[in-house]
Structures are given as C-alpha cells and as structure tokens.
C-alpha cells in the first residue's frame, strides 16, 4: 500500500522535473531584449556619497553624472559643465549645461551643485577626498558657478570626475540631506533609489540580487548605445560567471578569470577583451624601524641597506611571473604608476635587471651571505592571482638564500594588519582615483602618509611633491614628476611588479569600450 503511494509520488515528481527541464529547452527567457551583465561583486549602494568604492562609483556613472567625465581614451571631457576657465590660481569659473533634467523632471541648476558640495562634505560622506580641495562654490547665476579651491589645484578636474551632482529637492524630500551616519535606524532612501541626470534610470534595486536600469529618454547627450533595459546581477563564483557567459544567459561579464581566458576566447559566440589596467601591484618594505618586527635579524634592519633592497628586486624574475603566474595578463613595470596615469614617463620605466648572482653578491656585501628569514604579508582575494604572485616571489627569494614565511589571508585581515603598520614585507596594489601621479605618491611615498606603510622618508621627494601639487604649467609639472619618480626609483623603498591586465568577456555581437580603470559604461554599448 505504502509502496504504491511512494511509487506514485516518485513517478509524479520525476515527470514534473522532466517537464520543467524540457520546457526550458523550448522557452526563451523573459525580457529577451534586455542587456544582461555581471560582475563578481555588487554595487554597494545607490547613494553616490556612501562608499568610495570603485565598482559602486562606476556603476553609478550610468545613473548620475559629474561636472566632467572621462571619454573613450580616458580624457577629461565636459559633462554637466560645458566649459571652464581659471580666473585666478584658486578660482575656476564653470558654465553649466542648460536644459538638463533629472530623471524625475526637475531641472538641473547651480543650486544642485552647491547642495552636492555640502552633502559631499557632510560628516558621514565617504567621498570627501574628491572635494577636499574645494573651499566653496559661489553661484553667479543658474548656469554659472565659481569654484574656489584651497590654493592652486592643477588636478581639480581629475578629482571631481567621480563627484556626482545630486538633485537638491529630491534629496531634501527624502530626508537625506546629510549622508546618514552609520548606526542610525532610518534607512537611507537614496541607498535603494536614485535620481540622476545620466543615460539610465534606476528601475529596481535588490541588493546582492539584481539591479535593473532603463534608458533615460530625456538624456541631454546623444545616445551612442542601443540599450533600452539593462539587468545587472552580481555573480561571485568565477566558474558560475563564466558558465553564465558561455550559456548565453549573460551578454557581458567581468572579470574573466585568467585561467579561463583561452577557453572563453575559443568559444564561438563570445569574445574576450583584454587591455592594461591602471592598477600597479608592488611589494613594500619596512625601511624605518631599527629592527624588523618579523624577521630573524636582531639588532638591525636589513631593509635599511639599499643593497638588500636591490638584492630583493633583482631576485624577482618578473618575466616568469608574467608568463606563468599571470598567463601573460600583466605589464611588468619599474614605476608605481603606469601608462594612463598623468605623469607616466616611459623613459624611467626600465626595471633593474633580474640577476640571481648579483642578488646573492649584494646580500653577501651587506652582511647576509646566508640570507635571513622574514614574514611576507599578502592578500589572497583582492588582486588578480595575488596569492600566486606571492608564492612565486617566495620561491624566487629562497633561491638567493632569503627564507620567506608567507602569510596570505583574506583582504579584510590583510589590510587591517598593514594599515596598522604591523608588517615587515607586504604586497599592495594601487590605483589613484584621479589617475594622477601626485595622488599615488601622496598616499604611498610622502613622509608619514596613510599608506606609506614602510615609513619611507625622503625630504627632497616630499618637497617636489609639494610643488607638483600646485604647479599649473603641464611641462614644468611633468619635469618635477619625473624627478620625483627617479629619486624614488633609485631609493627602492618599494619593489614595483606590474600593472594588471583587464579581461572582460562578452557576446561577439556586443560592441563596448574597455577603459583602463576597469569601468564599464553602458552608454557606449551597442548590441548588433
């Protein structure tokens, strides 16, 4: 009796399952014309001032816009501002674009710009660094403003690319004039809703599940894209994301894991786009302490001796890392910045040669003929193949007698450790948001700066950077930059490795533009 029931149930379930499966092969997905894309993480919020996180701000560039934006070759071009002139070293006059409307129909005026500045400077805003050089904004009329900076700011435009302009009335209406402090019970309306001037409007937002954008028919610019609806889903698991592209469920996804690039490019119907990224990966050394925290050397700091630093540098076979660890998806470098960053100087981009014998000799000269032990801190989920790079470096240093204890851990713990300067030897990557050399160096190289974890201090470099910050003449500025980079390069407080290469996957019938800062803009996407 039971068996019959059991069998019936079993058979029933089996037939249901088969029907569902077979129907799948016959029915195409709903919204077949929507553009579907995926990234390994989600945008953190729809509020542009909540989190200064690269992917979040890139995503929001489809909905919100700033006074200026970057074009297809990363050049700065007008967006909500049509032109600008410097009337004094610290005063810029911007003419705002007339006739622009926010998605809810309210017109864009100078008041919105002033409101946006105040909100960006509010206590809980994470985009303060973008506007810290701006002292105040004076309204001349509805379409003209004067931005007064805190001293001369030659790279003002670079800094404000990701400072999006918000609609004053809408934010006031929804009680989020100041960015909400964390810990307050009220949910920030702007975290789940958006109202910008950009080419796309936010239709729905389910954090970590799906975000849907629709075309803004009132957009002020001529649309180069042909997307009416775009659906974004984060897919964390690499294999699943690749499967989504190969099964034609996704029109575009990034990043393509390095080991899958060959496979994806060989599959018909999809393609891989690769180009250099502006993120530089480098190794840092503690050059300030009298005794390293995590090494076998007592009473002295081997990294204070330039010969040891150079020995480490020359022990690294960057070509092997490029070919075997990065599968060719890297650009070996000698500088902390790469092509695409203002100030890059190709003449200086020559690495010290890989030379195991020279390395051993230098170590012996410095008093470590048998090498020494040191702990190496590395993240394992932040940069492309970060742990693999560290393992390769560990093996290479072993060859010259340096025994490295590799401490690879998740990024949350790794950054906590190195930010606290609790390290002797570490790996770090850096992209300056403004794409300017000064930003990288002011965070990593100047004496006492936030991410100058090794404690490097060169007063001449500091002085040069001070002048670079205010030098308006581009040629003079470049000369100063090159000099500062040359000095830093010779001092070897850090060992630059490479710039990563981006790998995006897309259907063959999708035309898009791949920018070196890994930002994906829908406004250039055409589906043939």
């Amino acid at each position, binding site marked *: *009796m*039971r*068996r019959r029931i*059991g069998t019936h*149930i*079993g058979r029933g*379930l089996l037939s249901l*399952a088969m029907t*569902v*499966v*077979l*129907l*799948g*092969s016959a029915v195409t*997905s*709903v919204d077949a014309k929507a553009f579907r894309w995926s990234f390994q993480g989600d945008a*953190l*919020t729809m509020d542009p001032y909540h*989190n*200064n*996180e690269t992917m979040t701000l890139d995503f929001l560039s489809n909905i919100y816009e700033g006074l200026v934006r970057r074009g297809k070759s990363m050049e700065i071009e007008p967006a909500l501002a049509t032109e600008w002139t410097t009337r004094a070293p610290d005063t810029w006059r911007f003419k705002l674009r007339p006739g622009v409307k926010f998605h809810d129909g309210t017109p864009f005026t100078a008041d919105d710009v002033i409101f946006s500045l105040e909100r960006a400077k509010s206590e*809980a805003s*994470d*985009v*303060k*660094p973008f506007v810290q050089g701006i002292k105040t904004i004076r309204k001349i009329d509805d379409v003209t403003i004067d931005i007064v900076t805190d001293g001369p700011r030659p790279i003002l435009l670079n800094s404000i690319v990701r400072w999006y302009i918000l609609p004053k009335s809408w934010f006031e209406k929804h009680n989020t004039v100041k960015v*909400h*402090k*964390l*810990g*307050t*019970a009220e*949910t*920030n309306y702007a*975290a789940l809703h958006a109202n910008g001037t950009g080419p796309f409007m936010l239709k729905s937002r*389910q*954090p*970590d*599940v799906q975000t849907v954008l629709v075309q803004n028919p009132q957009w002020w610019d001529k649309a180069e894209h042909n997307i009416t609806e775009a659906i974004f*889903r984060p*897919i*964390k*698991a690499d*294999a*699943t994301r690749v*499967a*989504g592209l190969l*099964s034609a*469920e996704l029109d575009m996804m990034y990043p393509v894991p390095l080991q899958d690039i060959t496979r994806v490019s060989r599959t018909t119907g999809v393609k891989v786009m690769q180009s250099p990224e502006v993120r530089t990966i480098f190794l840092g050394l503690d050059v300030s302490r009298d005794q390293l925290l995590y090494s076998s050397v007592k009473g002295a700091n081997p990294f204070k001796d330039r010969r040891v630093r150079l020995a480490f540098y020359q022990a690294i076979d960057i070509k092997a890392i490029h070919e075997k660890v990065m599968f060719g998806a890297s650009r070996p470098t000698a500088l902390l910045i790469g092509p695409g960053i203002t100030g890059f100087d190709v003449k200086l981009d020559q690495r010290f040669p890989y030379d195991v014998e020279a390395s051993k000799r230098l170590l012996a000269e410095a008093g470590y003929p048998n090498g020494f032990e040191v702990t190496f801190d590395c993240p394992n989920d932040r940069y492309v193949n970060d742990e693999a790079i560290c393992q390769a470096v560990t093996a290479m240093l072993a060859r010259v007698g340096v025994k490295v204890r590799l401490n690879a851990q*998740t*990024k*949350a*713990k790794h*950054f*906590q450790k190195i*930010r606290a300067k609790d390290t002797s030897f570490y790996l770090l990557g850096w992209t300056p*948001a403004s794409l300017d050399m000064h930003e990288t160096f002011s*965070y990593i190289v100047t004496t006492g700066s*936030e*991410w100058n974890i090794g404690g490097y201090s060169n007063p001449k470099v500091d002085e040069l950077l001070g002048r670079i910050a205010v030098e308006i003449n581009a040629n003079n500025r470049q000369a100063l930059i090159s000099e500062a980079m040359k000095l830093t390069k010779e001092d070897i407080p850090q060992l630059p490795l490479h710039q990563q290469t981006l790998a995006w996957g897309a259907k063959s019938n999708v035309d898009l533009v791949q920018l070196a800062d890994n930002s994906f803009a829908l406004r250039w996407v055409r589906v043939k």
Partner: protein
Amino acid sequence: MIAFVLSRLLQSAVVMVAVAVIAFFLFRYVGDPVLAMTGQETSREDQERLRTQLGLNDPLVVQVFRFLGRGVSGDFGISYRQRRPVTEMLVERLPATLELSVVSALFALAVGIPMGVYSALRRDTWLSRVFQVVSLIGISLPPFLVGILLIFVFAVLLGWLPSSGRGEVVSLGWWTTGFLTLSGLQALLLPALTLGLYQMTLLMRLVRSEMLEVLRTDYVKFARARGLTDRTVHFGHALRNTLVPVITVTALQLGSVIAFAVITETVFQWPGMGYQFIQAVASVDVPVMAAYLVMVGFIFVTINLSADLLYYGVDPRLRLERTVIGGQADRGA
C-alpha cells in the same frame, strides 16, 4: 512531562546565550569593519570617528552586554555593508534558503528511502550494486564540484536550465516564492539536486543498514513464521521501525542544510542566507554575521528540542520510565 519540557527549554536558552557570547568574541578577530567599509582615501580621523560611532571603542564588557541585550529583543542592528536593519535583510533571504533546503530534503527522502529499501531487500542484484556505487560517489564528491558539473552539463552544454540565480519570484506578503513561475522552478532544480545529493546518499545507506538489521531480528522471523506476507512484514513492520532513526538524521540534516547551504548558494548565486553570510564574512559585516550565527543556533536548538519532544511522544517506554534516550530510539513492536 511539563518538567521535562521546561528543563529542555532552559537548557536551550543557555545554549543560545553561549552561542551569542562566543560569536561576539569570535568577531573581534575577523578583520577591521571600518577599513572594509571605507575607501582607500578615507582619512584616519574619519575612520576613528566611525569606530566610535559604531561603539567599537567602548570597553569590552559594555559591548558584550549591548550585543546580548539587543539580541534578546530581536534587534541585530544595522548592517555595516548595506546600512539596513539586519533583521530585514535576513527575512528577505530566508524564503530562498528555506525553499531550497526543503526541496532538497524532500528529494533526498523521495529518492534515498526507496533506494535504501530496494538495496536492502534485493541485496544481490546489479541494480543494488549500482545504488551502492552511486552512493559512494555522492558521499565523496564535494558539493561545489557537483554543482559546477551540473551547471556545465545542463546550462552550458545542453542549455536546458539556468546556471545561476533564482529566476522570477512571486511575492506573497513578506514571502517570495519561486514555485509559482516556470523560471523559478527551473532555477531550483540544479541547486536542490546538488544540495540533496549528499543527504540522499546518507539516507540511502542508513535505511539500507537499518533495514538489514531489522530483517534479522526475531520478531520479523516470527512474523514470517506466522504466515504474514512479505509486503506486510517489510513495510508494515520493518520499515516503520527503520524510520525512527531516519527521522532523527533527516531532522539534523535539515538543520545543517538550512544553516550551511553556503557553498551551494555561492556556486549557484542563490540569494539565500548562506550566501549572505559569506558576503558578510568577506566584508567584515559583523552585525549580519552575528545575527546569522545566533539564528543558526536557534534553528539547531529548535530542531533538537522538537526531536526530543517527538521521541517522548512516540516512544511509550520513555513516558513510562521518564528517561530520555537522546539519539537513536530503541526498536519496539
């Protein structure tokens, strides 16, 4: 009886508090939430201000009691990452995990038990041997491998089923269900299969060995001697007694599945609580992690409590003797 229930409830409360306190202390070692929440350019002053605001600079004792006090009233705070109440976030994701877990458990029951019975009754047939091999594979293969394999075959090669996500869901009040749409059902198949495979093989092996043991007992021999049909003996008596440990195992498995469907949810990008937990760990979203652990503790405590109460109700000897056998119940006529 009342005393028994009360004592069990008290024990459960103690377990919950212990889980909460241990969870709290664990989270001091998972990384700095403030660094995870802010950009690389955020200044040290801003970070300190945020730390104070979140109460991370308060003395340890204060933090522990604040955590426990809030937890008792169900307030798990605001997620660091999404800046929304944690309770709201968990409730949003609960239906996805529950639907997946229950369907996988049903699949495991529907396939595992018949397989186990068959391979116990017909020990020497080739089909029974096939079942044995399948169960060995099912127990040995890690779930993420099974998941990726299924995705590869059914989504990439054949294109029959979606490779990730939950498909379209229908809202019924605060519950969202994937059962009412075709894409929802399609999306459910592969993850449920992946999650259910291990449970199914476990059940199959359990049922098989239990059945074999029961079939050897005296009362089964006497039942046969009395002339009862094979069907009555096998299913009326043997299987019934086999089911008691099966219920135990299924109940405990269900708890594990609900709590730890993390891997399957990550592979299939299934928007459930397990995936949410993994995200919270990676972004040091302490309130979500804490809420999740407390909830998992609660699920296990409830399931164990129910199982204990169920035995008490089911096994007459327990009521008479007023002793409880916590694991497998004895067999009885």
